[in-house]
């Protein structure tokens, strides 16, 4: 059969649009990953703590979002749930992680993983194991047209929201006292305290800040994926790969790696569904073999 030239054009355009929307899907998932991973990466960069409970705090935020949205709405959840997570994060750092930190990495990994397991059990006992749905707020439901296709408004919201947060992070680090102190303490925390700054307090606040970001990610992801106990592993693993891939402690590395993993995930599922989950890991192994410090990092 002969396809008329005009139709040939539309088919090609159609394919292009599918690839384009897949691309936006990938980017929006990548940006959520970035929100989830950035706190993990920054906490490692400043405090040398690999917090394995980070992904579980992220999951807890999604459950908080579910419950808060039930009695109020999504926007209140977006405000309150991350703050609650930040408070929990600060308490964990202050009373559990800080006392263990001087004893080295292994006890700390065991402790933070243990905290994660406890959070998981708490979630299961309060909310059960069924999949819960959080609806996007009404103003973000529906689709906007992109060419022939309609694209979910909520995904566009995620992209815009995360970019605003990213710009906010940049400003925080460049322009505020807190940001200056954090940058200085990342390279030489002893010197910072010798200048009269209470570094342990900065650490606790910063831990809260990193977990606040995980909380934001958890709330934003809730309407996108269903809320269930497997969320921590599902997104947490990707977030972990992002942090390692981007270079532990490197924010820009985490950003680039997030987008990469997001795109790989969506295009991968389209093109070769069965091996898609392997792609991320293969990429990580490949990058680490070539450059053990990650794409942008300087630590192993």
């Amino acid at each position: 059969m002969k396809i008329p030239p005009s139709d040939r054009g539309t088919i090609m355009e159609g394919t292009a649009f599918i690839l384009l929307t897949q691309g936006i899907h990938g980017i929006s998932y990548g940006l959520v990953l970035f929100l989830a991973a950035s706190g993990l990466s920054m906490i490692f960069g400043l405090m040398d703590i690999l917090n394995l409970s980070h992904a579980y705090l992220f999951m807890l935020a999604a459950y908080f979002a579910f419950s808060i949205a039930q009695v109020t709405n999504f926007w209140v959840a977006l405000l309150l749930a991350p703050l609650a997570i930040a408070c929990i994060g600060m308490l964990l750092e202050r009373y559990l992680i800080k006392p263990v930190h001087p004893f080295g990495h292994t006890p700390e990994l065991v402790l933070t993983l243990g905290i994660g397991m406890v959070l998981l059990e708490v979630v299961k006992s309060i909310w059960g194991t069924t999949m819960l749905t959080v609806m996007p707020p009404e103003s973000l439901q529906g689709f906007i047209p992109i060419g022939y296709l309609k694209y979910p408004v909520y995904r566009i919201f995620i992209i815009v929201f995360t970019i605003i947060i990213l710009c906010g992070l940049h400003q925080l680090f460049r322009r505020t006292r807190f940001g200056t102190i954090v940058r200085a303490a990342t390279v030489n925390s002893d010197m910072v305290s010798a200048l009269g700054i209470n570094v342990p307090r900065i650490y606790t606040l910063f831990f809260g800040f990193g977990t606040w970001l995980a909380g934001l990610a958890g709330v934003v992801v809730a309407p996108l994926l269903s809320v269930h106990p497997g969320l921590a592993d599902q997104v947490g693993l990707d977030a972990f790969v992002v942090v390692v891939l981007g270079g532990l402690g490197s924010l820009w590395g985490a950003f680039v790696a997030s987008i990469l993993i997001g795109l790989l995930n969506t295009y991968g599922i389209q093109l070769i569904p069965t091996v898609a989950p392997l792609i991320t890991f293969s990429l990580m192994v490949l990058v680490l073999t070539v450059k053990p410090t990650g794409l942008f990092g300087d630590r192993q």
Partner: protein
Amino acid sequence: MQLVVKDLNTFYGAIHALQNISLSIAEGEIVALLGRNGMGKSTTLKSIMGIIKPRSGSIQFNGNELAGLPPHKIAQAGIGYVPEDRQVFGNLTIEENLMMGQMGIKNKNAAGPKWTLDRIYEHFPFMVKKHGLKARFISGGEQQMLSIARALMGNPSLLLIDEPSEGLSPIIVNEVRDILAEINKEGVSVLLVEHNYKVAVYLAKRIYLMGKAHIGYENSVGHLEAHPEIRSQFLEV
């Protein structure tokens, strides 16, 4: 006396790095602490600063006990620290480094007029043009000046300075020396650790000499100059 250190003992694991160190500094005085490599001069400053916790002994500053306090409390009490190797924040600009010196200090009742960016720029004119430059891009001498200026921004009444002339050319060494003399004229006392004997005796009125982990000699500069055998016992290699 402004600072009175008594029977300070500090350990690195099993190594007894400071053994009953006692020294004192009067208000407005420059005192030098000299000795060969590895005797414990830097450890003495770090112990006073609380960066390494002394195991026992007392550190009285204006009558208040500082031993056992964390470094930020000691800095807030009015002690400025200019460490070995300068330790400027290379990833911060000159101006950000200076601001770091001021942010944590609430108690601003220091000797002499308060230090501000403007006054720092008057004393260190090279910083005006370079204020937006990352500190890792300036020369060693400039980093030394920045480290001193950063400590001054906290309006300390006592500065602990560790080998400010190390690795600098003779001209720059004299510049650093003159800056320290200027600062001292403004009422800041100085505990100076130095390998450069000339700089030390130019600035200080009193000298402490360290042997291994202990203080072996204490007297005026005049006395030390008159006894070359003491110099050779503690300083020459």
